[in-house]
């Protein structure tokens, strides 16, 4: 799904969640090539000019999520949980740790031992980043979320300093796991349900058609 479209969908769901007529949601999707900049992002972490980006077919969006700059693209599982944390825990630290746990557990299912690096939010396999996290919260309702490299073409990360860190990135494919984004998303949804203690019901959000 196009990033701009996904952003609009998130905003719609967040508004609904705040009013209470939309339940907690987890959007799982893939974006075409896009580079997004978090609220605290510094443009100097974008290593290519806008022209170079557009000629490489990459769009660019500044957003209101936490974190610095990041890349999304095919082969990357992107998850946007729209949760009311008041019904879980009013604790943003716990929330981010729980997201990390979902990804760590999912990867463990594929035999990848992933973990955390203190003070560096995200999920890491040794010193390489396999999943990035950036969250926005308004009235305890979450948006944005995480991006897990399944078989992402990692060369696209050359255009940025991911999250402002000069550490290498990796993907499940690079670690020898052949899995599709679809498969991983099903497994991840199950782990999400367990970590956040909720029942997962598949479905597409009402009134939205994916392209």
């Amino acid at each position, binding site marked *: 799904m196009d990033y701009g479209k996904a952003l609009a969908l998130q905003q719609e769901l967040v508004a609904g969640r705040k009013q*209470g007529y939309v339940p907690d949601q987890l959007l799982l999707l893939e974006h075409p090539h896009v580079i997004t900049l978090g609220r*605290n992002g510094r443009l100097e972490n974008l290593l290519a000019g806008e022209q170079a980006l557009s000629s490489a077919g990459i769009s660019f969006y500044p957003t209101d999520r*936490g974190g610095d700059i990041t890349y999304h693209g095919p082969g990357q599982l992107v998850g946007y949980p729209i949760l009311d944390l008041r019904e879980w825990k*009013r604790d943003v630290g716990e929330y981010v740790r729980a997201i990390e746990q979902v990804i760590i557990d999912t990867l463990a299912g594929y035999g990848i031992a992933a973990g955390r690096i203190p003070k560096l939010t995200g999920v890491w396999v040794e010193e390489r980043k396999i999943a990035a996290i950036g969250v926005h919260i308004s009235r*305890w309702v979450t948006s944005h979320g995480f991006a897990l490299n399944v078989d992402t073409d990692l060369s696209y990360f050359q255009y940025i300093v991911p999250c402002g860190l000069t550490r290498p990135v990796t993907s499940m494919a690079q670690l020898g796991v052949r899995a599709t984004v679809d498969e991983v998303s099903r497994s991840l949804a199950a782990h999400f349900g367990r970590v956040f203690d909720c029942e997962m019901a598949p479905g597409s959000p009402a009134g939205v058609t994916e392209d």
Partner: protein
Amino acid sequence: MTDVVMPQMGESIVEGTLTKWLKKPGDRVERDEPLFEISTDKVDTEIPAPAAGTLGEVLVAEGQTVGINTVVARIDEGGGAAVKPVAAATAPSPAAAEAPPPPPPAAPPIVEEPAPTPAEPSGPLSPLVRKLAREHNVDLSRITGTGAGGRITKQDIEGYLAKPAQPAAPAAPAAPPPAQPAAPPPTPQPPPQPPPALAPAVVPPAPAGQAKTRIEPLGTMRMRIAEHMLLSKRTSPHVTTVHRVDMTKVARMRERHKAAFQASYGFSLTYLPFITRAAVAALRQFPLLNASLDGNNIIYHNEIHIGIAVALENGLIVPVIRAADEKNVIGLQRAIVDLATRARSRQLKPDEVQGGTFSITNFGSFGSLMGTPIINQPQVAIIGVGTVDKTPVVIDDAIAIRSICHLSLSFDHRLVDGALADQFMTRAKQVLEDWSEEVL
């Protein structure tokens, strides 16, 4: 003048970076309107204004990182006319006790924080209020709470619903200062925008007639206990097994040494250290009961730290006897007395209530025969101790009078099966029934 503070966004979070002001000094802000953004740990959060008024001084610039509860700005509700009060302190912690009932309305502006955390300006919501709001599709941010700490009560919602299709009436600029004591509303219905008053701990009387309920906010400890109990029940499928234990030998030993024990150590000898000792012996033999479950991993704890539930006036706490396996009955009794005493006088240090690997709760001291205790997460089992009573029992086809105690073990069936749990209990029972260790 209302202080705007850096809210606490989670237990482990002690500071935040103010990333963006969404309003400029002099701008008009409505209560609950996003005022600034903070960033903590890759999470950006919009913080709503705690009160309506004019944004006065901005004390923290964009990009600055400050500790929680630091005042970052002030909102002037009186259109600039309000005298800057001295009373405005930093925000109390979310569950801090509310101030005593303030003086009558005509008093000069005594300013206090209208809501403990600006992130949740309406204060904690009760499940009832949340349900009502959801059922009637009410935007809670449009309602000003009249309950303790400015929280929204059922009456507030009913009052709001009783006034159909009202716009979000902004508080008039000349609105009274925020901490006008919440005098009972003059009309049966609460006004649409009562001052965001910090009500005293007493909830205003129901709008009309005799109140059928009394609403009281939960204290911090109660809130923690509630969360923990719910978490445990949701985390672990609990199973409880009950074993009848003949404590006659222990009872005799206790009887024999009671006076001397009291004389030498200054505290009395109870059954609890014996049971703890038996639990330790069984834990050594069945280490799975001394483990935790973390995702798909079992964490075996090589040390045995036993939590002992202590009842307090309005709650309970579970201080931990460290290295319980290295203590004899005297050492255990001393530790139990010490921890219980300090728990009741609230002098436990935080690390004394953490790190337990197994727990024991002694409800027998309140007369309970047996119970089904809730596991103290992330542990996987807990023993509940019932009363020790002289009971007629059949031994070798004869009826004898023995000191009988029922021990319940609640265990996490994710990790522990019934067979193992019962072997564990059989071992503990055996230690108690064949007690051989000298006490003094």
